[in-house]
């Protein structure tokens, strides 16, 4: 793999993060991650995994740490919460935990990543950068080398969180080319149950780059629902990475919405380390204008008797570009794997484009693995059925486009969050189809 050589801004950001100090294990991991990043660099379009997603301009952009823009008011953030204020709410402003804007409820142990590191939290040392490793993607390496803060959530073994935890990643910067590097670590102990809703939003309109990484560790029989809402500012670059690490009979349910940013990329990995695991990955990307929305997922079936189910949808208008790559690796030992992957895309214009690629690598013989990908226009049978009932033209188009999206949003089981997602998607689709 040949990437572009790393550039000075990233060196400075790494130096800044390193200078902030910390325990020796952290310095070692940061250093190793930065060495890794220096080795692979910002990928060019010659790198297969980045063929359709041009990020090489990042190598020559003068990124810097976000300038302190002051803490936003709670009222400014209010529209971005999907749930009521009885839920735990955590705010990261330009990468730094903002205690004044955050509220914590019982049932989940939460603190800022910086505070957890300072306090010597063993969970952080055990998991940080160990599940979402620096080897996974160049930006996962860059994140570990440069992150400034984040949050750590712990669902203790055997507990059930009463309500979801919401994490708001807010970029406020008014200056160009800030790099925001945050991390979320969620550790669910054995038999623990809880939900995490992450939103990525911006209050300013300057271009910036976010490279958030979320690590989700599920103990035996743990159940986690994870909703990720990417609604960055229009000129933003969003290159995120989520890694779920699962133990026996655990259940991970993920839903990712992507509506914002000029270029967005989300790498979603699930590693199935024992048997009886269930992994459900749902997603929806909406893009128009010159937007590009890329999802790369990888499911690692390392053990037998696990099920994974993945449904990603995309709706693309204008000159937008959608990219989907779904890898499923089934190891020789992983017999009785049941894996199903579906990627369906709807094009609203002649100039929108989608590149979709299922990539199944199956080394076991007694498995059930299927995949399907479609790219197309609205279903003509459905359109005729609506017309035969008096619903024609624009209204039929809107109803069917909404239906296409709603089917996958329905997979979110948290009612408040689902309703907020529906509202957000309706608004975005109205803009795209009017």
């Amino acid at each position: 793999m040949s990437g572009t050589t790393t550039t000075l801004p990233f060196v400075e950001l790494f130096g800044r993060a390193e200078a902030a100090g910390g325990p020796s294990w952290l310095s070692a991991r940061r250093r190793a991650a930065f060495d890794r990043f220096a080795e692979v660099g910002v990928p060019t379009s010659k790198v297969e995994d980045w063929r359709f997603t041009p990020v090489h301009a990042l190598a020559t952009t003068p990124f810097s740490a976000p300038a302190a823009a002051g803490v936003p008011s709670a009222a400014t953030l209010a529209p971005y919460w999907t749930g009521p204020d009885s839920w735990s709410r955590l705010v990261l402003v330009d990468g730094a935990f903002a205690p004044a804007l955050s509220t914590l409820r019982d049932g989940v142990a939460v603190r800022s990543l910086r505070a957890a590191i300072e306090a010597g939290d063993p969970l952080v040392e055990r998991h940080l950068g160990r599940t979402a490793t620096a080897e996974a993607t160049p930006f996962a390496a860059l994140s570990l080398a440069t992150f400034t803060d984040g949050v750590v959530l712990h669902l203790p073994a055997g507990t059930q969180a009463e309500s979801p935890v919401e994490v708001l990643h807010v970029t406020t910067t008014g200056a160009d080319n800030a790099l925001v590097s945050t991390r979320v670590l969620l550790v669910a102990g054995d038999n623990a149950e809880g939900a995490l809703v992450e939103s990525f939003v911006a209050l300013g309109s300057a271009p910036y780059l976010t490279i958030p990484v979320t690590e989700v560790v599920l103990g035996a029989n743990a159940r986690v629902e994870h909703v990720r809402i990417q609604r960055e500012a229009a000129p933003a670059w969003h290159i995120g990475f989520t890694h779920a690490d699962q133990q026996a009979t655990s259940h991970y349910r993920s839903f990712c919405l992507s509506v914002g940013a000029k270029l967005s990329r989300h790498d979603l990995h699930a590693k199935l380390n024992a048997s009886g695991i269930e992994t459900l990955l749902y997603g929806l990307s909406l893009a128009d204008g010159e937007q590009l929305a890329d999802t790369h997922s990888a499911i690692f079936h390392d053990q037998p008797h696990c099920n994974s189910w993945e449904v990603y949808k995309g709706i693309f208008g204008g000159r937008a570009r959608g990219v989907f790559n779904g890898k499923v690796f089934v190891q020789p030992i992983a017999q009785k794997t049941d894996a199903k992957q579906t990627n369906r895309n709807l094009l609203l214009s002649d100039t929108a484009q989608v590149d979709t690629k299922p990539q199944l690598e199956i080394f076991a013989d007694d498995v059930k693995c299927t995949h399907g990908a479609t790219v197309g226009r609205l279903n003509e049978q459905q359109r005729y059925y609506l017309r035969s009932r008096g619903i024609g033209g624009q209204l039929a188009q809107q109803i069917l486009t909404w239906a296409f999206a709603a089917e996958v949003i329905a997979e979110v089981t948290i009612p408040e969050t689902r309703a907020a997602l529906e509202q957000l998607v309706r608004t975005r689709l109205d803009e795209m189809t009017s």
Partner: protein
Amino acid sequence: MALLDIQDLHASVDDTAILKGISLTVNAGEVHAIMGPNGSGKSTLAQVLAGHPAYEVTGGSVTLDGADLLDMEAEERAWAGVFLAFQYPVEIPGVTNAYFLRQAYNEIRKARGLDELDPMDFLDLLEEKLKVVEWGPEIMERAVNFGFSGGEKKRNEILQMAVLEPKLAILDETDSGLDIDALRIVADGVNQLKRPDSATILVTHYQRLLDYIVPDYVHVLAGGKIVKSGGKELALELEKRGYEWLTGVAESAALA
């Protein structure tokens, strides 16, 4: 003036002629059954009347209340009062029955210059209409036909018909795939919805449905033409003798 007047209708799909000169007059208050063996053009006739874009009309005329039906788009035909109960109702995941029906109802109202009904008033209307098909309100929150059994889909078509109150209802093989209970509910629904100012066309392969919905006229379609017309007794004769004496090809009109 006849409600529906079809004169020498020719239609084709992918350049293959299917309808080869159909003439049929339907007056308000009448029930017509169109029977015939597989491939005779029955369903094509139903789809051509509803305005399916895949069928090309190559000759003839169709008027509804004197207006040129063939000149209208599918949605305009719905506004004018045409309703087709589909042989294979289409699933629309993501859209609830309640929302779908309200939109359809209001689009038709709007096209006729009437006020739209708000969601609350519409729910009241729905509650009444659900009785026609002996359904509870829970069906309204399910996605249109999605995951419905064959019988539920056909009932849903009749529910839509009850809400939209068409002038001309065309039922395309509505009896196919129904067990006896579902058939009774569907037939009862159709009978309740008959009005002196509306008409019904039943398209069916089998005589069985006509035990429940008694037609005033029966027409036999074969090779894209009406080869015989008569009263309801013609259906019984078809049940006994099959279609062979009319078409030259052995095919039963009785349910196996």
